[in-house]
């Protein structure tokens, strides 16, 4: 089995993750720009971080045969500081030509404040202007439903191309409007507290697999890069064959990410699909 781990925060993880992911069949990861575990006070710290995930982190992954790609953005959790956010945004376009950069993300909302919305809007406008793919975070817990509605309203207003936008962290109460509007829907699987591997399989069976992305949680909090494999095991347990597994956990990420000229992995079609 081959996997693509489309949403993985390597800077918060140990090298052993890469070793174990390689052993489990992960061939590529995508690292969205994210919170550094603390709120940064200088725009230059963000720029070094962008260098870390676009230049250094690929070398750490490559040691285990894993391709490492990344996304550049001011993350929602730090978007409330407009001064720093705008300083960082002014330097983001320079990173878009780097060979490992897939687009702008993760952007979006955390607490759904006016400042977050302003930074979200400006980064969306930049993505449209620079013809970049977009990865959007939706809030966790009680804010998710409201944050998802605000996100869809903004995307509609900006006339964003749904095929080039991935809205992440959907759950049962937010998946339908995301798919109905034509966006890609991502499910992030946690070992506890949020979306689980079993619930993700339920949604794959209820809503189908088209425009669906599945990824592990791998961040500063309680998380596990192997919930993706647990989800695949559950999907297999319920009777889905190897080609169906490949389509969800490898080919779907390829189909979305190949819209970036920097992503070059091919789709995989088995010569036979029944074991």
């Amino acid at each position: 089995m081959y996997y693509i781990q489309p949403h993985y925060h390597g800077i918060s993880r140990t090298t052993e993750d890469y070793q174990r992911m390689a052993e489990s069949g992960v061939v590529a990861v995508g690292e969205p720009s994210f919170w550094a575990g603390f709120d940064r006070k200088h725009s230059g710290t963000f720029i070094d971080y962008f260098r870390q995930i676009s230049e250094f982190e690929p070398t750490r992954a490559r040691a285990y045969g894993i391709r490492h790609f990344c996304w550049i953005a001011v993350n929602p959790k730090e978007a409330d500081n407009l001064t720093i956010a705008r300083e960082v945004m002014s330097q983001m376009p320079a990173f878009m030509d780097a060979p490992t950069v897939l687009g702008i993300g993760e952007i979006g909302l955390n607490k759904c404040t006016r400042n977050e919305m302003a930074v979200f809007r400006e980064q969306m406008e930049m993505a449209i202007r620079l013809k970049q793919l977009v990865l959007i975070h939706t809030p966790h817990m009680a804010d998710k439903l409201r944050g998802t509605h605000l996100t869809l309203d903004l995307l509609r207003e900006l006339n964003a191309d749904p095929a080039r936008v991935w809205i992440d962290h959907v759950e049962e109460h937010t998946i339908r409007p995301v798919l109905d509007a034509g966006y890609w829907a991502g499910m992030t699987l946690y070992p506890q507290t949020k979306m689980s591997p079993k619930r993700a399989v339920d949604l794959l069976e209820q809503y189908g697999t088209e425009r669906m992305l599945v990824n592990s949680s791998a961040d500063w909090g309680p998380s596990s890069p192997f919930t993706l494999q647990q989800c695949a095991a559950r999907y297999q347990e319920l009777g889905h064959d190897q080609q169906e597994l490949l389509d969800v956990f490898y080919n779907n990420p390829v189909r979305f990410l190949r819209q970036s000229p920097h992503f070059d992995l091919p789709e995989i079609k088995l010569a036979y699909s029944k074991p």
Partner: protein
Amino acid sequence: MNDHKVTLDIDYLDCRCMVLELAAALDRLDRATAGNTPDKRLQTLRDAIAILASSTASPDRTQRMLKLMSDPVTPVSE
């Protein structure tokens, strides 16, 4: 999509474990009498358990529980 019996065979032990964990957590709360003041989170849990126990023609308990636990959909905050 699996049939009813196969699905129950696969999930029964996990479900049994989860409802026992929930019962134990509520028992723990009942035993913790010190500082017992009204807390809307407890009512949210009781409302969620009512959804869990409901018989429904449409299998949407998860979605209804998540909506129960969601903030109202309103414009952006200051």
